[in-house]
């Protein structure tokens, strides 16, 4: 069951540095939203508010129909998938055990089967990969395992923090493709952090452009291109386009 996400007037600071300044966003159930911006724009901080890795100083954060603080952080997190840039697989656990982590935490009786299915879904048959250690996989395969781990317990939401950022271009394109297919199959609500506008356009229904802790614009990629709300958004689009033009020559 996909779960909607919402943030209302959320502000946060680290020491004297403002990370989020009165930010509000909505992610409707089953949709995918990409947070785009430079380093320090606050996009990762906003993402981490939804599984309470960051507890904002002000504002309200909701997952489904509940404030995130309504339940213990540990319980909340077990219901939310999470993928980070460097997979974060436990190096001393074999692939199958890594993927079964959340099902085991949730004490699901079919934890191993759940892990098996998730691995099949990301294109890594258990027979070939289940017994391997993470260091016996390629970078792309490791991210696939991380992806499988995030969906193994069938969460209503997944949060992805630069999930493909450390991969080479080809693995990256392949992984984007299979992720997109998988997300639609599972119809899971997705919040994605990326600094790559093209990736955001490819994977997300809507894009949120952030800058210095504030939202510049939220809308579809088409809206961003045709009607950029600020100079910053316009420049961002222009730069991404210039990159594509260079390829065309």
């Amino acid at each position, binding site marked *: 069951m996909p779960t909607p996400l919402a943030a209302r007037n959320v502000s946060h600071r680290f020491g004297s540095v403002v990370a989020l300044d009165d930010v509000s966003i909505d992610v409707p159930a089953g949709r995918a939203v990409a947070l785009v911006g430079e380093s320090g724009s606050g996009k990762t901080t906003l993402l981490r508010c939804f*599984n309470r*890795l960051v507890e904002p100083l002000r504002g309200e954060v909701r997952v489904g129909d509940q404030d995130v603080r309504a339940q213990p952080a*540990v*319980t*909340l*997190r*077990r*219901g939310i998938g*999470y993928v*980070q840039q*460097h*997979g*974060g*697989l*436990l*190096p*001393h*656990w*074999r692939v*199958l*055990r890594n993927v*079964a*982590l*959340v099902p*085991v*935490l949730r004490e699901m009786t079919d*934890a*191993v089967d759940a892990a098996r299915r998730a691995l099949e879904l990301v294109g890594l048959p258990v027979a070939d990969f*289940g*017994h391997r*250690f*993470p*260091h016996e996989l390629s970078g792309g395969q490791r991210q696939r395992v*991380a992806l499988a*781990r*995030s969906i193994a317990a069938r969460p209503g939401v997944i*949060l992805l923090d630069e999930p493909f950022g450390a991969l080479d271009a080809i693995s990256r394109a392949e992984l984007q493709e299979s992720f997109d297919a998988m997300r639609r199959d599972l119809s899971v609500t997705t919040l994605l952090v990326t600094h790559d506008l093209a990736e955001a356009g490819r994977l997300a229904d809507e894009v949120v452009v952030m800058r210095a802790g504030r939202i510049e614009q939220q809308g579809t990629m088409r809206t961003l291109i045709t009607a950029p709300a600020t100079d910053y958004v316009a420049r961002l689009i222009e730069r991404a386009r210039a990159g594509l033009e260079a390829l065309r020559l």
Partner: protein
Amino acid sequence: MKRILRSLALVEFAVAASAHAQSTATETATHSQQRPVVVASKPFGESYLLCEMFAQLLESRGMSVERRPGLGATEIAFGALRTGAIDAYPEYTGTGLVAVLHDSLPDSVLADSRAVFAHVARRFADEYGVRWLPPLGFQNTYAIAVTRATASKYHLRTLSDLARESPHLTAGFTADFIGRNDGLVGLSKVYGLHPRAVRPLAPAVKYQALASGAVDVIDGYSTDGLLARYDLVTLIDDRHFFPPYEAAALVNGKLESQIPNAVAALTLLSGRLDEKTMRQLNRRVEVDGEDVRVVAADELNTLGLIGGRQSTARVEQSRSGFARYMWDRRGDLAVLTLRHLLLVGLALLAAVIVAVPLGLFLERTRPLAEPSIGALGVLQTIPSIALLAFMIPLLGVGVIPALVALWLYALYPIARGTYTGVRDADPDAVAAAEALGTTPVQRLMWVRLPLAAPVIMAGIRTAAVITVGAATLAAFIGAGGLGEPIVAGLALADTRMILSGALPAAALALVVDGVLGLVERLIAPAHRREGIWRRQAPLMRTPNV
């Protein structure tokens, strides 16, 4: 905590029991009701010999005896006596006057050894509740000695002559002598003695150092067996700097009320040993390499204080090779090795129990970490013998203070290893585990500890090897172990005896390191295991934390 204390007490008991079992071989009768009399010595030959004579005398009168020979130096032996950890040991009035009381007397009194004895005995009784039994009958004063060649080259006859020539001479003095007011400190003041260099030497090697020309002048004892062997010249104390050093049994004040027979028995030796006799006995031990037990028994027999030979385990002095020597002592060495291992094992176990949680705690309170671990590191810089000496006023002598000192040494490497290992354990994996809903305890047990295990284990291995080495020094405070033959060998100038402790200790360090290396491979994170160990890593295991 209570349980730890109780188990420590059990060990103390077990260790004491084994020591007791060793000594029962030479006992004829034992009063099962009475506690054993604890007889000790300082770490040099004459002291060992007198201690053994005390012990055999007591045993011949039906008392059970516990021997604690070779206790550190004056502070340690006297500290142990004062706190009641030992009952008696041989001491010298001059040492009591200067090194313990820090007292000085007018020259007129110093010239009269009886007056000095009376003065020292009174002050010890008043201030420490410690009793000097009537003197044994000989003096053992410091004998500042040079070779005959040096004496003639520089025309040395008196200490004043020596002071005049001292800028040309290198001195080799025992550490004890260098620091004492009745040693080098006072000699410099009174005679103006300022050698070109002063080398601290162990008592066992000073004669060899002098004979080989490595040093020009040493501090000997006037009853040393080796003075005659090397044909040395003893310089005359022309300003009467040294106080009289009359030997006597020093006993704890409580012994008389608890075991009056013991005091009565020890008093039988008073006035029975003159200087000539003592020099001969020392010579048999230090030069001829005879067993202390044999020499002690012979003399007690000669004095008519024990009858027959029944109380003596006469040990054949086999001169045939080191291997044979070790083989003959295999039983003793096995017991000492076991005891050594027990000391190391317990100290290490206690250190792991404290330092691993400490390291984990510090990892969660990072600002405290470096200062705290740094403080433990400072402990590491205290010389073992000094740390052991600090323990005496608090914990007496024996196994407990040794365990505490060894435990203190082992804390640093283990706490450091744990802190560093857990802090640096794959931060990505830890962050992911947190984001996916593991509890802090689960992260610790499933991720951080398994990944930190090799670093923690490396700390434990370091601590283990350090502890095996440091434990040899525990013999100085009567904790036994392989340090016992080392300390005794140093005191008696017996190289084979030193090696019979040092070699097993070195082997033990290698074995302990090797065994812990295997453990390290066993507990390495699954993905880093190799070969046979690897197959044991589970494909899938439901964690149960």
